[in-house]
């Protein structure tokens, strides 16, 4: 729902409010607390009043609030030196209340938003000529489905065949709620300006900063990423991507113990055991199961020859389709992984229950893994964000290494944003590090927990920010967002994100994969060329072109040759 509301309209819509501003609780807890329609949720970080929704799948004593600015009022900016804020497993108090629900405006004001104006418009449509474009790549999630067939009426997308519901929402609504003009903030309000003036102001901000943060980059192409890294190098700033709060911990684990990877092709053609750990593809990557699990491959005849296991903290729709579902206690995956490693080596597990899982089930899963001809573990932020964070992934990779003594096993991280993998890759070949790269000393340095975006913002270390195709205000803990209210901020985006409320310069960017060509990397590290389907709105440039011009302007101001 969150994906569809974001892509369909925007985060300023009531649909988004309905999709993320609520608290799901166990009906037992709701009646014990005598909650009616709303609940007050608070801790040392903040307080929000949310609609309460009963959900029997939520264990007692837990509250589920979807990722968004409401949840972030309560999340902990402490990353334990992993760069990953504590977005799940946060301790809160809940109590009945009659106070009004916390609106988006309330949240933004509490965070210190600079302005609440939104000048969203629809890109002009010109219908008449109908055409069909085949083999379109979907720029939404890390699956980068490349089999879409789009039907267009002029530059309006009227039908998306092959794409999931989120993909359809993205393509059919690409023209809606757009940033169509550049703006700069003057005397507290946004003023429409021409592109040159906006770029000049953005360049001035970057050049006059001591330590700018360039952030986002997972929802744009590799070409834009390269310019963003160059900007950080030029200005002795930091460049970080949203990897830092999704699969950043996976990269940290690979730095420690290596990895065992494969591509989708291997999973489709060879895997007779697929494990989803802490990920729910049916809702977050809706085509994933059809593309990989159900598909008939060369050596595996589709779903009937392929076992599916789901390990998660709650019974998700994906879990309902699995041959084996293992419900792990939230935040205790590390224990379960350790027990699995013991079971794979036939060591005795003394406890009858590990991380809430009966010992027999642990042994059953270990047996399935050893007996598999080829196993693939797809794992999500349910594993990277919780409990031991990157240590979970270290344990998973060690398990997979050990299983490779018996059979063949590999891992693929379920990457969210469509090019978050490409952001990591471009950063690696340019800087040697996957994300969170500081050029403070004129060469790249990644010191996780120091040069990572949440830590830099929460501790007030950066003095300006350039946000590219990303929405940190919707994703980062309150204390990190509050710093954006205190420093000059430049936003380059296609739609009005919540971060535009903190922007001093707003520059429209066209959509890669819809309005611009470019390269993106699938979650299995395979690069896919994004297609241009329609022209960008008049006067709107591709992200890579905007950033390229910004690089030229910054170079000119620093007198190092444009």
């Amino acid at each position, binding site marked *: 729902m969150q994906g569809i509301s974001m892509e369909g309209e925007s985060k300023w819509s009531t649909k988004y409010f309905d999709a993320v501003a609520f608290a799901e609780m166990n009906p037992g807890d709701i009646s014990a607390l005598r909650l009616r329609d709303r609940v007050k949720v608070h801790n040392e970080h903040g307080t929000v009043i949310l609609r309460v929704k009963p959900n029997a799948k939520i264990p007692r004593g837990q509250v589920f609030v979807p990722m968004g600015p409401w949840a972030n009022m309560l999340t902990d900016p402490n990353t334990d030196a992993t760069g990953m804020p504590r977005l799940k497993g946060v301790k809160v108090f809940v109590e009945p209340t009659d106070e009004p629900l916390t609106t988006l405006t309330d949240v933004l004001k509490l965070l210190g938003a600079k302005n609440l104006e939104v000048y969203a418009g629809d890109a002009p449509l010109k219908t008449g000529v109908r055409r069909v474009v085949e083999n379109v790549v979907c720029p939404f999630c890390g699956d980068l489905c490349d089999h879409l067939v789009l039907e267009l009426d002029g530059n309006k997308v009227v039908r998306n065949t092959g794409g999931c519901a989120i993909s359809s929402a993205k393509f059919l609504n690409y023209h809606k709620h757009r940033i169509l003009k550049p703006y700069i903030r003057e005397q507290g309000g946004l003023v429409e300006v021409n592109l040159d003036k906006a770029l000049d102001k953005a360049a001035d901000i970057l050049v006059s900063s001591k330590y700018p943060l360039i952030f986002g980059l997972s929802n744009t192409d*590799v070409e834009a990423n*390269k310019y963003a890294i*160059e900007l950080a*190098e*030029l200005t002795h700033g930091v460049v970080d991507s949203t990897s830092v709060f999704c699969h950043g911990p996976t*990269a940290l684990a*690979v*730095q420690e113990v*290596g*990895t065992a*990877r494969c*591509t989708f*092709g*291997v999973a489709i053609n*060879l895997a007779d055991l697929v494990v989803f750990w802490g990920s729910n593809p049916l809702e977050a990557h809706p085509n994933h199961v059809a593309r990989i699990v159900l598909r008939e491959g*060369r*050596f595996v005849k589709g779903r009937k020859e392929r076992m599916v296991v789901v390990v998660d903290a709650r019974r998700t729709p994906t879990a309902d389709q699995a041959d084996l579902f293992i419900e792990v206690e939230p935040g205790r995956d590390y224990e379960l992984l350790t027990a699995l490693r013991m079971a794979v080596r036939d060591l005795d597990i003394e406890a009858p229950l590990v991380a809430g899982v009966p010992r027999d089930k642990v042994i059953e899963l270990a047996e399935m893994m050893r007996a598999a001809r*080829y196993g693939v573990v797809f794992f999500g932020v349910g594993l990277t964000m919780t409990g031991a964070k990157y240590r979970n992934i270290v344990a998973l990779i060690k398990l997979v290494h050990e299983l490779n003594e018996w*059979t*063949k096993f590999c891992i693929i991280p379920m990457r969210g944003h469509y090019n978050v993998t490409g952001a*990591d*890759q*471009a950063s*690696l*070949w*340019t*800087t*040697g*590090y*996957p994300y969170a790269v500081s*050029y403070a*000393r*004129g*060469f*790249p*340095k*990644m010191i996780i927990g120091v040069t990572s975006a949440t830590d830099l913002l929460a501790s007030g270390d950066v003095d300006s920010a350039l946000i590219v195709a990303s929405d940190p205000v919707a994703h980062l803990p309150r204390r990190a967002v509050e710093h954006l209210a205190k420093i000059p901020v430049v936003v380059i985006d296609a739609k009005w994100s919540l971060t535009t409320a903190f922007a001093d310069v707003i520059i429209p960017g066209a959509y890669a994969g819809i309005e611009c060509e470019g*390269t993106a*990397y699938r979650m299995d*590290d*395979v*690069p*896919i*060329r994004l297609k241009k389907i329609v022209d960008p709105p008049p006067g709107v440039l591709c992200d890579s072109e905007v950033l390229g011009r910004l690089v030229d302007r910054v*170079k000119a101001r*620093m007198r*190092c*040759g444009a």
Partner: protein
Amino acid sequence: MSEILVKNGFVYDPINGINGEVLDIAVKDGKIVDPSQIDLSKALVVDARGKVVMPGGIDIHSHIAGPKVNLGRLMRPEDHYLTNRPHDLPRRRAETGLTVPNVFRIGYDYARMGYTLVVEPATPPIGTRHTHEELDDIPVIDKAAFVLVDSNWLALDLIAEGSRELLAAYLAWLLSATKTYALKLVDPGSDVAWVITGRGVDLDEQIPVYNITPRDIIREIGSAAQMLNLPHKLHVHCNRLGYPGNYLTTLRPWR
């Protein structure tokens, strides 16, 4: 600058039998010409007294780009801790890494060593767009890549069914689609054997499912390269790769 005069260097040019003579070398519009054709008022003149002037080095086998190289960078953050050289903008980007340098250091270091062309000798077709992205970002030097076909399922099918012309056509398409320069075999057949049975294969062992041997792959892909008249016929790392003493295996297909 379209005219360059390199003066007074010790010139080495084995093809033309020049072995350390002090000579002037002139370049006009990208070609070496007689120094008399150079207009000294316009030319860039380089005094190479006491230095060697030689043709640019060519390294046809150096793993400089692609998925495996980037994975190496990811796995070795410690390689970037003490190997940094700050940028000198706008001329030089920051350099980092020793065993797996970043793209900038790869280009600069090869240029410093006198190389002008370096070839990435193993790129899997599905990852070759990535290889080209890194090659594109390596400054100064010329680059090319060889595409891996040692366990390519389509190629193995065609070899198994004896479709020689189709195999050549497929390999020609692969070279063109991946914009690579030559065909590469690494431990032929072992990758496919590994994913099916968990172990690699020796030169004359049967590859499971396909019922051909690595020797068949080398012979058939070599013949296809011959049929296509490729300038660089075939680049082979023979079987038992990584096993001590495997030079004996490497020598066997030559007989």
